[in-house]
């Protein structure tokens, strides 16, 4: 029993890191001398990161100021948490947060589910050319921007569009996919599924190839049918990948897809389609009377980033805990 535990990968990894920390590390000076070329190669990336990612961070000050471009960031008056207060007092704050969570979680769940089912189905396909063709075709939409897909979606989801004609053949009256507040979030979710499931399936397909074929052969010999093999070999085999994907996607539950919503929504569905990002865009960048409300936009953006940061930490912790996945 102890032997089993000792050889489990997480324990081995832990031991390795423990050993690494106990042996005395040589001083940094020595490391630098030894590996200076590696550090030199790292330098350009570090500079870029510092310049374009760390340096602009001081701009978050805008979130706590009554920012005016004329006065500049430093000279604009401080207003404390007033921008945050204004956001939460606005009539839209809670519906927007609710919409964002609903749409984002719906997307994560259904994209992953569709990708998994698709990968499993594709894995059963034996004709190679057919498999390749299907995979290429389903991956393709991922590489098109929402501006293009949006135009296509508006066409095919219109009351006279392809989708409504097909369901019309079943005797169902045309549905306003883009014109009904109750349906619109689902339109967003399923159009995202349509666009992304092929690409998301790539990782599952990769995981599937890692399963030892001998296991299938042995199971077949033992009399397992197609579903038996699916449930007892394939799914357990890729379970770590599934868990990993579920954990990692936690970091994006506040990203409901800015471009998608922006190209697909319209006044009819503001109530259920407006998300944090479109709100920030409308208020913080477009603004009223030609003057963007930078402070409010920055505050909401910062809020979203803060929560997102926490969620990413959480997701990595979960990924490490359940799927042995770690970067650092």
């Amino acid at each position, binding site marked *: 029993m102890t032997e089993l535990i000792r050889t489990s990968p997480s324990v081995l990894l832990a031991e390795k890191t423990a050993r690494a920390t106990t042996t005395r590390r040589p001083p940094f000076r020595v490391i630098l001398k030894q590996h200076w070329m590696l550090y030199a190669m790292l330098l350009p990336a570090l500079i870029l990161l510092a310049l374009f990612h760390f340096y602009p961070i001081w701009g978050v000050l805008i979130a706590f100021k009554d920012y005016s471009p004329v006065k500049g960031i430093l000279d604009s008056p401080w207003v404390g948490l007033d921008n945050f207060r204004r956001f939460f007092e606005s*009539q839209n704050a809670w519906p927007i947060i609710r919409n964002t969570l609903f749409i984002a979680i719906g997307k994560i769940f259904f994209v992953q589910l569709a990708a998994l089912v698709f990968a499993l189905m594709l894995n059963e396909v034996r004709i190679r050319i057919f498999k390749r063709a299907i995979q290429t075709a389903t991956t393709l939409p991922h590489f098109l921007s929402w501006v293009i897909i949006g135009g296509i979606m508006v066409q095919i989801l219109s009351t006279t569009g392809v989708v409504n004609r097909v369901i019309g053949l079943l005797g169902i009256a045309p549905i306003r996919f883009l014109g009904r507040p109750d349906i619109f979030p689902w339109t967003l979710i399923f159009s995202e599924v349509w666009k992304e499931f092929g690409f998301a399936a790539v990782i599952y397909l990769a995981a599937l190839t890692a399963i030892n074929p001998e296991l299938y052969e042995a199971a077949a010999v033992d009399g397992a049918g197609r579903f038996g093999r699916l449930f007892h070999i394939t799914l357990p085999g890729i379970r770590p990948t599934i868990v990993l994907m579920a954990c990692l996607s936690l970091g994006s539950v506040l990203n409901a897809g800015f471009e998608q919503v922006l190209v697909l929504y*319209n006044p009819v569905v503001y109530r259920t389609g407006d998300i944090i990002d479109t709100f920030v865009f409308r208020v913080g960048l477009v603004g009223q009377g030609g*003057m963007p409300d930078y402070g409010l936009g920055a505050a909401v953006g910062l809020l979203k980033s803060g929560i997102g940061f926490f969620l990413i930490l959480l997701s990595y912790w979960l990924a490490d805990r359940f799927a042995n996945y770690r970067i650092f």
Partner: protein
Amino acid sequence: MSKKMNRRKFLRVSAASAGTLALAACAPQAAAPTTAPAATEPPAVTEATAAPAATAAPVAATSSCQMDWNPTFPQPFKVYDPPLEVAVIWPPGMTFPEGMSWNNNPMYNRTVEYTGIKFTIHWEASGDLLEQKLAADLAAGTLPDVFYAAGLFLEQLIDNNAIEDIKSIWETTASPLTKEKKMYPDYKWWKPVRRGDKLYGIPYTWGPAYNVDNLCFVRQDWLDKLGLQPPETVEQWGEVARAFRDAGLCQFGINACKRLVTWYQSLDPIFGAFGVMPGFWVKAEGGTLKYDSLSPAVKDALAVIRQWYEEGLLDPDFYTYGEGDAAGHIAASKVGLFTAPWWHGGMQVKLEQENPGMKLAPIPYPKGPQGKQGRKASSEVGPSVVFRKGLDPLKIEACINNLNWHIEMHVNWQKYQQYGEWRNSHAFVEGLEWVWGENCELKDGPLAMPKTYEWMNTIDFGFPYVVYPTYQADPFRDILEWSKQDPSKLNKAQRFLLNNPIVLREADYYSKVFDTLDTQIVNEYFGNPTDAMKQYLPDLSSLESEVFTNIVIGNEPLDRFDSFVEEWKAKGGEDVTRDVNAWYKATFGG
């Protein structure tokens, strides 16, 4: 090979006519400008071409044709010598024909020669980037010499003492004509730049009938086919659309897009027929302003549009289309009634050429049940030209002189040049916009009007600020006048312009907008967003468009309008109204 020959020929011609000197040479009868500086820079193309001597030859050959109009520019104002450099913002991506550049083309050279100002490029940007760069410049103290500002940005520039008070220079330098045409000092567009006794800039003064005021149009060929009269009332709009649709001529009938009141494919004339304009602040009793979206008549207009939607006279998905997408319905013959601004005239000419049989005609604004007519008016108060703090007063004076020159040339154009189109703004250069054809009549040159129009917008940086209320209307009216005259009484340039069907159509439409100024409904609020507006308006505007569109498409009952009014007031609308009225009182007294 032949292509190449044409190109070379064009280059020679344009080289010869690039400088205004060459222009003067073509017109011996022209009175030479009095104090013009010796010459503009030699056209770069001369250097580029291997044999400079050859450039003169083709002109000599073509100039056997005589101009029968005066192509010279006036020189009534001061020329600065040596020329002053004024740094301005340019739009990105300007292109010029070979041999020309931003600081060597007919428009630029003309300004240098006749006003002694060299506009230089501070940087190139437009849109959001422009605003960001201006803000950065402000922080760094490197603003352009002259630029535009509006709204809160303008207010902040003034508050922070970042722009010059030009009052005394303006008073002494601006000509009486300039002051009169720009309606100085009392018209409302001067309000944003006036602070007590100080003057911080020169406003854009487009005046009425700017480019986003809609006209109504109908498919005249379908009316003829069905033997119908053009619709005059809102009710008849429905009838005509129904007849078009039922006869199988189109799919829907009336065009609309996701914004009900907008700049193109708008339904504002329908609201206007009920005497209201959603989204506008209009005058109410007792010298106050009220928000017109709340007026009960809006409900009546919504009821009509809702009825149309229910009958299928609007695209069932109209609320998913932007203005441009919806406009595609016209070309696709899906609609027979729509609205568009005057500049749609040019597109209509092209549409009719591409779709044989199609004929589009303007119709009067529809009348409502009480016989009202109305359309939305564009905002009269726009951005203003401002001068950065510390700019040499001589340069401010030069810019105002430049303005005087433009306005004088535009207003008294007959003293200076007789072709008229766009008057001062259009160089109308031989070899660019026109060339000599057979029989010494003018024909289209290699560079079409939109190109020079684009330059004109930039060079002198001047175009928007030199305008005054009738700036566009006047030349268009002249063109309409010429079109009624005996062609033999006109000069070649006038005949050339009348030959262009687009110019004629646009002139007709533009004057139609201008002739219906009494029907327009004006947004009386042009102040900056107040705290209450910043707090509540984003929510209130999305609530409004959401409710109105949902009423139209039947997701919500018509009576939702009544609860919307209450909701609007309760969710901060009362505060906004109070702020707006406080502003109104402060701005217009009382």
